């Protein structure tokens, strides 16, 4: 029966491209296509079937229309009933009104629209507002959680050509004109529980939370936000923002600027920014305070930010400065208060964090649940104001029964079930000229069959006796997998799995390192041999999931639709190993299992999560779930040759060809080792943690000489060189920007993060009083004394790292060059009260005079000359020894204070000493 249904484009008929049902149905060799269509189209609703036939066909249940009036707009119902195929090409909904005259047809449609619109139930959908944030979130969810396994992606990805994309669209279940059909709230309710109105499970539940469903619904109806009629303003979660691309030096500069972009965000974030420098944000909305109390608000920013509550400035962290935090306190009554924040960044690094603290509680970010704003509500497109006419409603109700709608759509008009005069299923003549398969007469329904679909049904109906035989388990399995489109995601016995065009939409939620195993749903070949029946049931009916790293979700299809699958898999796949063959667990070997799993053995935890704890590397499946999920026999076979049972897996065999790689534990006895692991893991989460799982800190302690640590250091850059001094003052030198980046007191650094596992991420200093020193080039030639400090640094500013020399106590003298100047930058620590300090000697040598060069010693909101030194933001004190004639300058530049040392010398060398205490 070949590829009848995936390639409807091949069979363009007057009625369109055929019915678009499960796009992968053709992949099941065991499925009789005609029979499957009889089931999917619920033919036995009109053509009476015997009990045997009904059981074999297990007809798909049609949507329940009892509350359709609250979900679908009159304008949509009118268009759809008038011509189902033109509104939703490929819909299995037949045209029952095709034989009426145009005027009778439009009268019938009108009556049906009135009737269906009157079916509202008690559910009144809420208005929902437009939100750029929700649309973005919905776009991501729609394209990752699994929607596009059956439906078409909304935009053509770069990887697909136009032809491939069109082919993909026509091999997808159509969504229809949703923006005209429904509202955000109604669609979101449907997405959260599709089985409620569509009990067939063809549209399964993806276990979406309310917020997720709302986001996808807002995304799918986004046209309503851009071009639809606007409804009354409604409250939306999060904040409204205006984003500016302009150079300002204080927040006041934004007041008169025009925003580049506006939208909404969940909370205070710079995420919508399109560049890093010369930008600003205005956030506005309402803050809901849970209870009356005194609240402290904290705003940490680089550069400036200002926070208003109820129109009063609460935190003023304005001006150009390095990252710094300020706070303000006020008493707030429970309930809603207006909140606004202005932020800008002039040059270089920008950041913003807004937190609050209720008196007596911890400091934390303001949760998005406490933030809201209003926006215009989204309304369905092309609205039709329908005043329900009781006469038309009654007429529609009659038609709904008499035209045959009620045959499928039970529950709409109770008691108005099929009163069909259609021939019984067994009596159907495949060549009836006026039947559904022919040129339908008034009594028949007009389906948009393709020729292939028609032929398939004719073939099946020509042997009606077959339909009375019970369906064998294998065929039932194949039919179920076809009907529910399981093969869109899973392959089984070499068929199915994501098609090439859809492949790219299967992504990892958080871990690319897992490769395809981190993004592709597992294959189902032999799944009944692999998984315990009760586990399959948990996956199908109880939302059990063990692959949190996969973005696609295992949907829930409903017990009536998949309840039989665990048994069917067991029957189809079981190779006969029964539970009785499992040797009794031997407690004695458990400890060897633990050894094997840990770092001293086979280091399974290098990749596998254990009892919810992170592995040392990638987050592969949690080992403590194994005995709940897997059959013992499969487990033993899998460990010996993983690739045989899971082609392409990166799980290595530790018993290649059955021989144990580890000969030390249990004398390298393969079956005892595997048994020991099984026994150990059988305890599930109660299993004692294996060795090597709990991270151990590795504090580097300078004792009698300095210790260097060259790695990713938070605040010091990707090429940081940390130096810990025995005096307990420490620094990090940034070898990208060639600057002193961090200084801190006390403990030096914990090297554990980088020495364990794969060593990912930046390590912060271990000690206290961590000061981040300004980013950017340390030296610059300024055209004029008031010229702004250049934004470029590092290689782009002509700086080049040259290395370092260690003195006898391992203290480095860093060497670097810029514009023909050689710099040696050497720091030692010294005892000082109450905390040790650092003394830095900088020597410059050049072939030409150094005049015109400046050293930027500090940047801060406030720099004061005090007692022979300079105090930066009340935190850092700098004292200098300078050659005669060199005098530090404090200047305002870009809203901040800078401490510059002019190297105003005609000499070709210069030496300064800088003492840092903090």
């Amino acid at each position, binding site marked *: 029966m070949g590829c009848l249904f995936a390639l409807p484009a091949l069979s363009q008929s007057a009625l369109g491209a055929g019915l678009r049902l499960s796009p992968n149905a053709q992949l099941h060799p065991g499925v009789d296509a005609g029979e499957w269509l009889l089931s999917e189209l619920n033919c036995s609703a009109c053509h009476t079937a015997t009990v045997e036939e009904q059981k074999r066909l297990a007809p798909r249940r049609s949507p329940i229309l009892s509350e359709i009036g609250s979900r679908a707009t009159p304008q949509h119902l009118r268009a759809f009933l008038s011509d189902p195929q033109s509104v939703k090409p490929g819909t299995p909904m037949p045209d029952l009104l095709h034989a009426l005259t145009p005027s009778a047809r439009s009268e019938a449609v009108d009556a049906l629209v009135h009737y269906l619109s009157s079916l509202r139930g008690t559910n009144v959908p809420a208005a929902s507002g437009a939100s750029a944030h929700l649309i973005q979130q919905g776009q991501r969810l729609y394209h990752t959680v699994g929607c596009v396994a059956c439906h078409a992606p909304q935009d053509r990805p770069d*990887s697909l050509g136009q032809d491939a994309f069109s082919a993909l669209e026509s091999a997808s279940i159509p969504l229809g004109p949703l923006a005209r059909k429904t509202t955000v709230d109604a669609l979101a309710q449907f997405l959260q529980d599709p089985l409620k109105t569509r009990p067939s499970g063809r549209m399964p539940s993806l276990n979406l939370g309310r917020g997720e469903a709302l986001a996808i619904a807002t995304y799918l109806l986004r046209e309503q936000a851009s071009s639809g009629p606007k409804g009354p303003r409604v409250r939306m979660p999060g904040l409204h923002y205006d984003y500016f691309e302009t150079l300002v030096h204080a927040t006041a500069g934004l007041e008169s600027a025009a925003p580049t972009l506006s939208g909404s965000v969940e909370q205070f974030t710079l995420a919508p920014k399109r560049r890093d420098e010369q930008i600003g944000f205005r956030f506005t909305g309402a803050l809901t305070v849970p209870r009356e109390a005194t609240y402290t608000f904290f705003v940490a920013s680089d550069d400036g930010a200002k926070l208003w509550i109820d129109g009063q400035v609460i935190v003023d962290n304005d001006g150009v400065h390095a990252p710094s935090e300020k706070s303000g306190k006020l008493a707030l009554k429970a309930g809603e208060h207006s909140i606004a924040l202005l932020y800008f960044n002039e040059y270089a690094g920008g950041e913003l964090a807004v937190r609050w603290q209720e008196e007596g509680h911890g400091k934390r970010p303001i949760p998005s649940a406490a933030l809201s704003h209003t926006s215009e509500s989204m309304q369905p497109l092309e609205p039709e104001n329908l005043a329900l006419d009781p006469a038309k409603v009654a007429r529609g109700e009659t038609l709904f029964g008499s035209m045959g709608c009620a045959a499928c759509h039970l529950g709409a008009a109770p008691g108005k079930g099929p009163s069909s005069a259609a021939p019984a299923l067994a009596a159907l003549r495949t060549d009836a000229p006026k039947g559904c398969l022919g040129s339908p007469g008034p009594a028949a329904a007009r389906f948009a069959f393709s020729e292939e679909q028609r032929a398939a049904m004719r073939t099946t109906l020509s042997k009606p006796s077959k339909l009375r035989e019970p369906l064998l388990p294998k065929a039932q399995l194949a039919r179920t997998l076809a009907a529910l489109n399981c093969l869109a995601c899973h392959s089984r016995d070499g068929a199915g799995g994501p098609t*090439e065009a859809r*492949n790219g939409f299967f992504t990892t939620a958080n871990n*690319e*390192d897992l*490769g*395809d195993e981190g993004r592709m749903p597992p294959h189902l070949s032999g799944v009944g041999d692999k998984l315990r029946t009760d586990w399959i049931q948990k996956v199908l009916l109880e939302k059990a999931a063990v692959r949190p790293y996969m973005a696609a979700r295992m949907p829930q299809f409903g017990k009536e639709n998949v309840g039989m699958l665990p048994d069917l898999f067991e029957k189809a796949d079981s190779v006969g190993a029964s539970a009785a063959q499992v040797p009794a667990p031997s407690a004695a070997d458990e400890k060897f299992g633990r050894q094997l799993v840990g*770092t*001293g*053995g*086979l*280091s*399974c935890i*290098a*990749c596998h999560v254990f009892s919810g704890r992170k592995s*040392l*590397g990638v987050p592969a499946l949690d080992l403590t779930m194994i005995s709940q999920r897997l059959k013992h026999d499969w487990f033993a076979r899998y460990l010996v040759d*993983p*690739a045989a049972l899971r*082609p*392409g897996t*990166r799980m*290595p*065999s*530790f018993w*290649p060809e059955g021989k144990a*790689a*580890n*000969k*030390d534990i249990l004398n390298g006895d393969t079956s005892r080792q595997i048994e020991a692991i099984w026994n150990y893991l059988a305890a599930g989460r109660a299993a004692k943690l294996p060795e*090597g799982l709990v991270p151990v800190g590795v504090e580097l302690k300078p004792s009698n000489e300095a*210790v*260097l*640590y*060259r*790695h*990713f250091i938070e605040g010091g*850059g*990707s*090429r940081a*060189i940390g130096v810990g001094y025995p005096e307990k003052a420490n620094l990090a030198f940034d*070898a*990208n920007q060639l600057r002193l980046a961090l200084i801190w007191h006390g403990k030096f650094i914990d*090297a554990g993060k*980088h*020495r*364990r*596992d*794969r*060593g*990912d*991420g*930046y390590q912060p200093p271990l000690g206290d009083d961590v000061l981040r020193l300004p980013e950017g080039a340390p030296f610059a030639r300024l055209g004029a004394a008031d010229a702004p400090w250049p934004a470029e640094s590092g290689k782009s500013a002509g700086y*080049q*790292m*040259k*290395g370092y*020399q*260690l003195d*006898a106590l391992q203290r480095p003298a860093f060497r670097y060059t810029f514009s023909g100047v050689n710099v040696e930058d050497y720091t030692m620590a010294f005892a000082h009260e109450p905390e040790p300090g650092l003394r830095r000697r900088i020597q410059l040598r050049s072939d030409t005079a150094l005049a015109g060069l400046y050293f930027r010693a500090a940047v801060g909101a406030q720099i004061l000359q005090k007692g022979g030194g300079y105090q930066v933001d009340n935190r850092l004190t700098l004292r200098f020894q300078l050659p005669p004639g060199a005098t530090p300058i404090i200047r305002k530049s870009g809203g901040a204070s800078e401490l510059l040392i002019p190297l105003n010398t005609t000499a070709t060398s210069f030496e300064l000493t800088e003492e840092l205490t903090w």
Partner: protein
Amino acid sequence: MNRLLIPIFSLAWLAALCVKAPADVPQLQYKKLATRAETEKAALEANAGGSPEIKALVADRLDLDFPKTEEDKYYHLLTFSLPPDVQLEPGALDWMPGGKLAVSTRVGDIWILANPTEQPPLHPQWSRYASGLHEVLGLAYREGWLYCTQRGEVTRMKDTDGDGRADLFETVNDDWNIGGDYHEYAFGSKFDREGNMWVVLCLTGSFTSESTFRGWCLRVTPEGKSIPTCSGIRSPGGIGMNAAGDMFYTDNQGPWNGACALKHLVPGDFMGNPEGNRWYNLATNLGPRPLSPKSGSRMMTEAKKIPQLRPPAVYFPYPKMGQSASGFFCDLSDGLFGPFQKQLFVGDQTHSTVMRVYLEKIQGRYQGACFPFREGFASGSLSLLQGTDGSAFVGGTDRGWGARGGKPFALQRLYWRGVTPFEIQEMRAKPDGFELTFTEPVDPSTAGEAGSYKMETYTYIYQSSYGSPEVDKTTPVIQGATVAPDHRGVRLRIDGLQEGHVHELHLPGLRSEKGAPLLHPAAYYTLNYLAP
């Protein structure tokens, strides 16, 4: 030829040991009995119960006299004890003057092993030469300087005050960038004939190229200048030269890499992964940016469209041969390491093995075969280096990726016992089949029987997603096997060679003249180009 030949059961070996070992090594009373247990018992009794040192000596002799595996009969593995609390995880190895071995570690140390050839290694003399470096994955000594490739730069160091520790560290080149991603590794080679060091730079997160030149090979000249050399790199595991001095690196299975492979680096070439090609604007010495390959295609199909694309010289079929190809060396010992002169010995981190590679040039391009060689290393093989005595030093780590060996790190030495294993020595492509040579004369009746051989071919999908199954499988017909007059070779005539496919050969029925089966009866030849 067998300069290291030591008769296994000869007590002359003991004399040799006594000469080599420090004076405080006790004399060992030892006589081989029928079983390992009997011999051990007798030896410990003869040596008064045995001090820890005696026990170690006895264990070493027992290992020699009672090989643990078939492979161990020919290639024996010694394990170095390490200084306490040292996380060795050797990323690179090189020789320093005076026969000292420099070992760089993941944690940023460089250790010196002063007596690496002590046998057995009972008293390893370790000292720390440098520390605080950033994950060194390349070491090369030249003219008083030890060069190292750190994540962010090539650095050279020197001990100027003679205290045994380096104190002067000079940045030689840092023309690439790192962004804080752990996967942005940098592997450095030894110096090529022009004195250049070749650096291969892993992609960001092994999928994208977020920092300058990630996914590239740069050459660093003796003057410290960098030359963009090859693009298309994904996730290297090692870099080195063959006997002709041509540069190769291993690249690991992943996006655009169907399986791990050994690849020949030729300046101007594109090695297959297009993520890093965004940096062609910084490589003005090279021609235009290559066309982007089409995902889902095959390597040789794309190679015909993209002139710069260089197909891998040898695939290591995944997971049959290995799962994480790593460092390698070329056997230049002129026979001290056994019968495989000038072949490459390539580590596999996951399998804790060393594989063997034979390369030939067909249509001007390197291709060839890989063979299993030695398994059972203590940790995941990563850095490999050959010594002047022919033995191989293998540094291992599990580094967040599990390895069969099971130990988190190790340094081991593999040496040839002087006994020749029965192995395929070389596998050469011929227009109508393959030519095999063997390390020992073959039994002409089994070797001449076509049924002694089984062959299957396959290739990989060349695609942007991770790895590939074996696809386009075929089963060529072995029409005949002709044994060479000296019984050292077999000419296979095969119908159905597949250009661009791996040809997997099994030789279960083949026997040596002495009736022995092959130690490793399998070979995997990457036939990118048919022999003319």
